[in-house]
């Protein structure tokens, strides 16, 4: 019973990390109906930037500032140079071009950093464990969960209380409507990409000490992000949160009950949700 409780807590922890990983993907989809297959690659770039920055300066804080910013710039550049031209094309073109961009980024990372995995040390202050009642939990993981929670709150405020948020919400209803409101859609799209990129970047930096960095980490991240946003509901903030927590829980609890099936279950769950409730568990039907 105690183990089960711990798996639940641990699953919620994994879930918050997954939320962070997926929220950028869902924001971009929500506003632009744009499926960004390069989301995982943005995450990858940030993780390697963190590796480089921590290696040079030893400062995780610096990595947390620079890497998301750099990835936001990368995301905007990608949007301005390439993706902008595909908005009028069918979904398929957008999927294919971001898929190709992801491939390109991955190859460039290997050119730059080599194909072998590398270590990013956990910051000294967070390298221990904390005792939560009868359980031990890594201090660093706890910090990541806290950051993810802060991000969730900040994003919620942005979406609910700011003009950008109003546009985001309107956009997820109907993109034409936003244009009719006389808002500079071009700028909003750019801002959304910057935000989505920065969030992927933040996730990448925070994940680096948890997993280390290696050039193929983007595919796994993208797979998880897809499952999370599809299960929760594509395009909604709360969907990413609930989807993340749910997948985290499933993964953690399954590892006690039926570990072999954990992955099979996750993808089966994704297929089931798409079929039974295509807008996700929290999406509007």
């Amino acid at each position, binding site marked *: 019973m105690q183990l089960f409780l711990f798996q639940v807590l641990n699953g919620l922890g994994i879930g918050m990390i997954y939320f962070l990983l997926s929220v950028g993907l869902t924001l971009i989809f929500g506003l632009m109906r744009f499926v960004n297959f390069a989301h995982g690659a943005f995450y990858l770039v940030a993780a390697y930037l963190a590796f480089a920055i921590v290696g040079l300066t030893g400062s995780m804080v610096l990595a947390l500032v620079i890497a998301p910013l750099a990835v936001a710039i990368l995301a905007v550049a990608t949007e301005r140079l390439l993706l902008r031209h595909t908005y009028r094309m069918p979904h398929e073109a957008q999927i294919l071009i971001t898929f190709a961009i992801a491939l390109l980024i*991955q190859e460039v990372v290997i050119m730059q950093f080599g194909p072998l995995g590398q270590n990013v040390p956990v910051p000294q202050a967070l390298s221990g464990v904390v005792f939560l009642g009868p359980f031990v939990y890594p201090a660093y993981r706890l910090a990541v969960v806290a950051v993810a929670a802060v991000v969730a709150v900040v994003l919620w405020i942005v979406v609910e209380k700011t003009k950008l948020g109003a546009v985001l919400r309107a956009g997820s209803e109907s993109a034409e409507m936003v244009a009719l409101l006389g808002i500079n859609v071009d700028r909003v799209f750019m801002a959304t990409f910057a935000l989505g990129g920065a969030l992927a970047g933040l996730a990448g930096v925070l994940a680096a000490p948890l997993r280390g960095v290696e050039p193929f980490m983007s595919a796994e991240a993208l797979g998880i992000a897809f499952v999370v946003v599809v299960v929760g509901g594509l395009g909604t903030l709360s969907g990413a949160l609930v989807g993340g927590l749910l997948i985290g829980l499933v993964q953690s609890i399954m590892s006690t009950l039926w570990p072999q099936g954990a992955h099979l279950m996750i993808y089966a769950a994704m297929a089931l949700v798409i079929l039974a409730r295509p807008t996700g568990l929290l999406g509007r039907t």
Partner: protein
Amino acid sequence: MDTPRFPNVTTLIVAAAMIVLPFVVPATLASQIAIFATAALSVTLLLGGAGLLSFGQGLYLGIGAYASGLLLRDAGFALLPTLLVATAGTAAVAAVLGAVMVRRQGIYFVMLTLAFAQMGYFAMLAAKDVTGGENGLSGLPRRFDLFGATIASPLSFYVLSAGVFGLAFLAVQRLLASPFGSVLTAIRENEGRSEAMGYNVRLYKIAVIAVAGGIAGLAGSLHAVFLGFVPPTDVDLEVGQRMLVMSIIGGVGSPGGALVGSAFYTLVSEALSELWARWMALIALVLIALVLFLPGGLWSAGRHLTGLLRRRDADG
């Protein structure tokens, strides 16, 4: 789409290319091109014909490959029945999955293809006693008899692969030119209108998913026969992506594109991989350029070019 006349220019070009191929590249490489051209045809039919984007066609290639491996090794099947059973069996699986998948459209359809492909991979690993798990399925026969001819040398495998591709190519071409193909085109252009016109859109989609699955299964079957082995990568997500990339590069507007795409991808990777291991970057760049500037793929480039020439002829 191509004109329904037969044999049209596309068919002649493809036939000529298949004959020339083994003279310009080693026979095993030519076989690889033919096998993956068959696989890419599956995507061409789905995406070019019905507008259905699938990242998961690798699943069907994998099913065809593993089914053939087991039939040849454990059930003692001969070559022809193996190819036929693998194709039909994979088509049946695709029909069942298709019946589920057609309930969703657009991005959700894409996600379903991804989910099923992933499940297929994990199922292969879980059933390692049957599939050999990450070690692959080995010990397949290395010699085959087909209509009195022995198939064992690289060239004979090429003739087999090219023949199978030729048949699949003609089947796809005929299918797209048929009334069935016209309905698919209508669905691709405007699904709602086709529905309103009284077509059972879902049924048409299931049918095309089944045929495309069968073609991918046939390619997988051929791959297993050709290698004498089923590599676990055959059911990996990557193989589905590769099929997609090939058909996009070649162009999904014509079944000829599948051959061009397969040849381009295979030859580029072959020529570059030992010189520059990061050749995938080049493929990615080509893909980006094609999406932006030439959505019809390399095949349509050829068409544009001949169009220009013709116009010049007319002017002069």
